[in-house]
């Protein structure tokens, strides 16, 4: 961009047009997020402020949106369903995911690493409806036979499926953050004569802990927001689970199953949007936390 350089007029125009287009793309992401939040909130707001029973919503497990006698919107069982499946998924996915990330970044040779990364990314590319189908047709009989339970569509099934779905995210972000630890740390530690285990436990994990935490939180976000797979694998029963073998229903699955039918702007429709607001708040909080933690990494 030297002033002496002569450029045709159209080129300058094209450049500024491209620039503003790219800027628009950047801004649009923010616009979309706010637009979605505004829409979800607007659809649910009328009932939220008039006639919505917050106490019933959070503390009652009676979900009877189409009852003829007495309509009740108690979401406690749904919240418990989402929480139980997510907690189980994380209990399985975090050790595996972090373990795999450590293996990939520290132990494995370059060729095996490439192969493994491709396979893990492939795992992330499987559509959630396929996962749900696996849960419904493969895992259901396996769980019935293995645990002698009457039905295999339960917390365990949903949790396993969700764990498999969140592992790729945890692995790839976890591996990135381990790789971001400067090699000088490793060299210094090895020069002090540490074993490999000590290197990982005492040096790498503390150094990469923010990135790893962010990886875990993004995995949580994935698990909370997942719909189709849990709809198919958890059995879709309104119940507070007391064991891994109980069927549950999650918040997301409830929206998916019921929104199509609920007459537009009816109370039921608005309550489903209020569930949407709740989910949005949960994932927003989780992502914000992850982002703040990563910012913490950068600030150092």
């Amino acid at each position, binding site marked *: 961009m030297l002033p002496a350089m002569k450029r045709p007029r159209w080129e300058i125009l094209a450049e500024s047009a491209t620039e503003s287009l790219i800027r628009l*793309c950047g801004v649009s*992401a923010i616009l979309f997020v706010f637009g979605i939040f505004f829409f979800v909130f607007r659809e649910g707001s009328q009932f939220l402020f008039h006639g919505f029973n917050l106490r019933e919503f959070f503390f009652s*497990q*009676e*979900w*009877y*949106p*189409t*009852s*003829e*006698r*007495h309509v009740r919107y108690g979401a406690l*069982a749904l919240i418990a369903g989402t929480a139980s499946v997510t907690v189980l998924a994380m209990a399985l996915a975090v050790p595996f995911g972090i373990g795999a990330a450590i293996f990939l970044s520290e132990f494995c040779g370059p060729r095996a690493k490439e192969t493994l990364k491709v396979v893990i990314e492939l795992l992330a590319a499987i559509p959630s409806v396929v996962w749900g189908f696996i849960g419904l047709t493969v895992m*259901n*009989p396996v769980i*019935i036979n293995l645990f*002698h*339970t*009457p*039905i*295999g*569509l339960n917390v365990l099934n949903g949790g396993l499926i969700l764990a498999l779905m969140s592992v790729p995210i945890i692995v790839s*972000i976890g591996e*990135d*953050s381990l790789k*971001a630890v400067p090699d000088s740390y490793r060299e210094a530690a090895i020069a002090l004569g540490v074993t490999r285990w000590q290197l990982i436990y005492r040096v790498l994990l503390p150094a990469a802990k923010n*990135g790893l935490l*962010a990886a875990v939180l*993004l995995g949580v976000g994935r698990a909370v927001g997942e719909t189709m797979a849990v*709809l198919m694998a958890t*059995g*879709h*029963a*309104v*119940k507070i689970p007391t064991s891994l073998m109980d*069927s549950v*229903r999650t918040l997301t699955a409830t929206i998916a*199953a*019921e929104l*199509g*039918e*609920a*007459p*537009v702007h009816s109370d039921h429709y608005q309550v489903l949007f209020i569930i949407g607001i709740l989910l949005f708040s949960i994932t927003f909080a989780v992502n914000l936390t*992850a*982002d703040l933690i*990563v910012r913490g990494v*950068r600030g150092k």
Partner: protein
Amino acid sequence: MIFRCAFSRSRRAAAMLLAAALACLPAACSRSRGPGKTIIQDSGSDTMVNLAQAWAEEYAKVEPAVSVEVSGGGSGTGIAALSSATVDIANCSRRFQPQEIAQAKKNTGKDPHEVMVGFDALAVYIHKQNPMEQITLDQLAEIYAEGGKLTKWSQLGVKMPPGSDEIIRVSRQSNSGTYFYFREAILGNGRDFKLGSRDMQGSKDVVELVANTPSAIGYSGMGYNTPEVKALRVSKKAGDPAYPPTVETTLDHTYPIARPLFMYTLGEPAGATRKYIDWILSEAGQKIVLESGYVPLPKAGAPR
């Protein structure tokens, strides 16, 4: 940095998806609006979706200039679509409720017009290894209704292998016409379902889950019967004779939980839609009802 990286990747994917969707749009439009083709949109009941599909396929041979597009989703979905005038015909395995008629009238200015197109016996399915053969309506209510006392197979006198004594209730999602009909016919008096039933999204899913679960019980249209499950004989009350769900028992009203199937249009059907419904009510259309596993209208003048 890590975060930004993950973000940009997902955004690129979204952009590609959008581009693909935009590219497909004109193609999709031109295909569905072919020269001189009339489209009839038909949506609703999941119980009827196979039947509606069979009608549409057969009608394409009879009347090549008309194309009927069928989708399922549940009676409630069809009702919602009809009252926003996005479909021409709503398939329903239950009647419109008064407030739904009012809603449709408010939105479109027209009354929904009802045509009975056949019958379905609501079959009660159990696993094929379950020794039970028949059930009464009271027992069904006690199994499914809120506050009902039957939760174990042993209470019904059925011996199950250890660990599977609990009755696994399989039900439908709350917009299903089958769900509404079952609630009205079996539970009665506006009673609600017991919480904790496995609520499936489709008629077929109910049968599939029951086929895979030895201690399950579920209800679904008779057209979805397979060799993997057993349809129970049903009696009105203990001591009464129990009948299996068949064409005969439906037509002579001995099977207690049979229901009519409807098609709804906005106002009196006209033009291509009218011709289509007339064809469905004709002998050729009714033959397909039987072939799809449902019960056709009685020959000499439909009741009502």
